[in-house]
């Protein structure tokens, strides 16, 4: 695929998606604002916010970036039997399941160290682990759908897929975290 490296071309390709995603992100901010009182009451949950949505976004963007390069090199096929595709999906889910409990423990430790651990360590770990498992599945589905859509509409995956995936994970991250907090806290 030929691509242009000028400010105008890059802006044309990215700005409309960027502004649309910004509106979506403000929506996720409104969800965050709606349980602001709970977050300010339990600092370990506030500590968990950036790392949960960030790690979910990372999982999606690593997968998207690998698929995007495979796409540019012409080695990607959208076939469930494709080893490259399924191997990357399996790795993404395994990474999430192994990392998120550690994320929860780390958030509790940090909150405890800064004098704000009102919640039990087990509760924070459970919130992180549950959020992580849900987010891994959502990140994979979103990444595959966005990469496939970019391929079908002949858009450059680098410009489109990573923003869509990262933002979807941010919004889903806030919603999933909200759900896990409602369920477990």
């Amino acid at each position: 695929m030929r691509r242009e490296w000028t400010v105008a071309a890059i802006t044309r390709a990215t700005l409309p998606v960027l502004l649309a995603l910004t509106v979506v992100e403000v929506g996720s901010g409104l969800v965050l604002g709606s349980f602001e009182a709970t977050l300010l009451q339990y600092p370990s949950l506030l500590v968990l916010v950036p790392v949960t949505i960030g790690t979910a976004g990372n999982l999606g963007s690593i997968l998207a970036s690998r698929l995007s390069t495979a796409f540019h090199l012409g080695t990607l096929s959208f076939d469930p039997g494709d080893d490259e595709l399924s191997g990357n999906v399996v790795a993404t889910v395994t990474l999430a399941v192994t990392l998120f409990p550690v994320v929860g423990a780390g958030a509790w430790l940090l909150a405890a160290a800064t004098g704000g651990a009102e919640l039990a360590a087990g509760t924070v770990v459970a919130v992180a682990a549950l959020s992580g498992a849900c987010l891994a599945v959502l990140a994979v589905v979103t990444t595959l759908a966005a990469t496939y859509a970019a391929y079908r509409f002949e858009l450059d995956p680098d410009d489109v897929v990573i923003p869509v995936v990262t933002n979807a994970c941010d919004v889903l991250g806030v919603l999933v975290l909200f759900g896990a907090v409602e369920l477990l806290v």
Partner: protein
Amino acid sequence: MSVRSVAVDAYREAAPALAASVVGGLFAGAVLGGMRAQLRAVEGLLVLVPALLATRGNVYGAFGARLATGLHQGVVEPRVDTGDRRLRAAVAAAMSNGLLASGFAAVVAYVVLGVLARPVAGLGTLVAIALVAGLLSGVALTGAVVAVVFAGYRRGRNPDTLVGPLVTTTGDVFGLAFLVLAVRVVVGGV
């Protein structure tokens, strides 16, 4: 290659960068946990936080992915050369799009909170905070992305695996730290 070997390779390649980003994300969380005073002082700031953090990830993640693909395709050389037309255009586009999106996020948050009749700080205050934070973190992130992607590539690492975690981590830490600084600059000592 079998599914298992692809998965093991991908896991091994991604795990260290992802673990490092978790550490960075926790620090970002500690900054967020420590800015409760600013969150209370500027109403609507928490609503703006995901949009501002996402803008960093979006703009500089795409910038990093573009550099990675450029390196793979051999159209970008892995060294900093201010005369490189492609590199210069990619940096200028990232900076200007980042600032535009930050200011836009502040306007949207202000309008939506106003419509919902939820408490919100002044429009000028929110926009100024977003732009100051956007400019400072933009400069820091451009430097971090170029340095890590080029250095990683020269040492034989796949830049694709470095970009996402790097940008989200440094984006969140810089983004929140510079947000605190921006609140102090715009509103005064909180």
